[in-house]
């Protein structure tokens, strides 16, 4: 096992940040922790990177205990905290050189690993890190976390605050790193990124709701989902809320994802109800459940 958690709990005063969490990450796996802000993702990362000590439970990273063998873990993992944590007053190149030196290596030695990412920021290597755009900063941070060729990479919300194009590029890079045999534990609040992981853990309020492959998680969704559209989104939400058979509904892009309490739901009936209430251009279509739907269902 690359990462192994057994019954990990951690509280800050009276607030229980993570409660009795256990999961395993296989070597070479791209594992995602999916959950909203405040779910306990960062706390888990800090326990695994030996920055915090759990109140209860045991955890291993690459076979080393996070409390006893913390020194060995610190040598062999790469960590990218949620907040941009490089030296803003150092240039791109200086940052990278610095992290290479403190890990006892050089940029040249492991250039192969970071090459694809580094070429994108190389034109700006004389620029101070604080003056980079969000996407560039994340790429630099990833380079710095990778420069010592870690066995396990911990990425805490690496794409938060990054534009969609850079996000996509970032995930492509993670996929390539995975092929090079690096185990990756990544957290994200974006459900669409979850689908790109090998396996994901849905986490909320410090508890794991489910762990499985994205495909299986979606498959387990118990109900049929309908995409409902209308010209007046606000009215549509109001009316659906008042509808007696509504099981769940929440906005999803330009549509509302709707599920019904009954198994023998007839879309025509809903259409009539909505039309009666003065809504226009109504569309009702079956759609496939997404990870977000599953999450909302499990989090209920």
């Amino acid at each position, binding site marked *: 096992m690359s990462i192994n958690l057994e019954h990990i709990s951690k509280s800050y005063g009276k607030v229980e940040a993570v409660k009795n969490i256990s999961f395993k990450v296989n070597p070479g796996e791209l594992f995602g922790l999916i959950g909203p802000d405040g779910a306990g993702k960062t706390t888990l990362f*800090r326990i695994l*990177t*030996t*920055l*915090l*000590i759990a109140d209860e439970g045991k955890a291993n990273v690459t076979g080393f205990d996070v409390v006893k063998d*913390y*020194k060995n873990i*610190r*040598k062999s*993992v790469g*960590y990218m*905290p949620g*907040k*941009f*944590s*490089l*030296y*803003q*007053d*150092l240039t791109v190149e*200086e940052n990278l*050189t*610095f*992290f290479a*030196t*403190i*890990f*006892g290596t050089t940029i040249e030695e492991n250039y192969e690993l970071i090459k694809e990412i580094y070429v994108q920021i190389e034109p700006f290597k004389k620029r101070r890190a604080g003056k980079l755009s969000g996407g560039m900063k994340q790429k630099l941070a990833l380079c*710095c976390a990778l420069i010592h060729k870690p066995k396990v990479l911990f990425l805490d919300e690496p794409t938060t605050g990054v534009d969609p194009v850079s996000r996509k590029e970032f995930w492509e890079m993670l996929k390539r790193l995975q092929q090079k045999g690096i185990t990756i534990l990544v957290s994200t609040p974006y459900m669409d990124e979850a689908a790109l992981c090998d396996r994901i853990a849905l986490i909320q309020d410090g508890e794991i709701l489910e762990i499985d492959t994205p495909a299986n998680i979606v498959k387990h969704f118990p109900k049929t989902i309908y995409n409902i559209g209308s010209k007046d989104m606000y009215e549509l939400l109001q009316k659906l809320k008042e509808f007696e058979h509504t099981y769940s509904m929440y906005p999803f892009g330009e549509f509302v994802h709707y599920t019904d309490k009954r198994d023998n739901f007839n879309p025509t009936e809903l259409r009539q109800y909505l039309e009666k209430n003065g809504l226009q251009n109504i569309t009702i279509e079956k759609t496939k459940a997404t990870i977000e739907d599953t999450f909302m269902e499990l989090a209920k």
Partner: protein
Amino acid sequence: MKRFIGFIKKEFYHIFRDKRSLFILFGMPIAQILLFGFAITNEINNVDIAILDHSKDVTTKEIIHKISASNYFSIHQFLEKESDIESVFKKGKVKAVLNFEKDFSKNLIKENHSTIQVITDATDPNTANTISNYVNAILQSYLKEQNKNSTMAYQIRPQTRMVYNPELKSVYMFVPGVMTIILMLVSAMMTSISITREKELGTMEILLVSPLKPFQVIIGKVFPYIFLSIINAIVIIVLSIFIFKMPVQGSLFLLGIESVIFIITSLALGILISTISATQQTAMMISLMGLMLPVILLSGFIFPVSSMPVPLQVISNVIPAKWFIIIVKGIMLKGVGLQFLWKETLILLGMTVFFIGLSIKKYKIRLE
């Protein structure tokens, strides 16, 4: 070793790229030493006084002449009547008025004594005191000259001699103090700020999750400041020697060694402050309030320790600056060596070891 050098290189980048801290580092020592040396002084020079002479005879003329001939006073105005005294003080220019009684000369010869009233503006008590002392001294020396020939039956004549600073230059008192303050501030405040900055920006998290050992991080952080503080100490000593003509009676080498010890004490304090503060602002406040004030008030820099209430005297013993000031004054003014300063040096060394030990013990290898 390579790691360590890389770390120190990074620290120097931080320092030289932050214009503000660079200014504090090198601007402050020079500004402070010049300020204390030139502007803040206890000496009096050319103080304006006024004279109200009711006799206008030979003796008063001689005395007035003697007073105006000294560098300490310049006669601003001659008053005509008693009521002028109040108004001339209210204008604020005149700091003292000498009021000679009527028939000054006659009284002196006939009754063997006559009176001169010295009225001083005591809104500034120190100056008022000094002025009245100086006037007294001038009068005494005048009398002495007059009585040269006649011998008195009994006479006690005090012969005062001010040693180590015969001209009573206040800059001699300020230089050791300012040097202490600056070394303390630069070392303690700058290190505590630079360590807490890593915490605040989140880079400490990455440094912790790296093979760097805690002591490597700490030494790496403080090393540049040892270097810069030594430069500062040299600048201060050079300034005080060449601009203020301050003597260094003792060994410069010993002064250097003692300064390095004090710098390390301050750095250890800075590390300690950084372990208890989470933000740069707290670190700065603690350094300023917790270090600067005691150094100014309790170290004997401005107010003599011996005239403090006993509880404060006891407290002053735990302030490293107190011992360093004693050492600096000893070396620069008295020219004494280690055989007289070993006790103070030992206390300072003890404090250094204690603070370093405490800060390494308190340094967190994790986030909490």
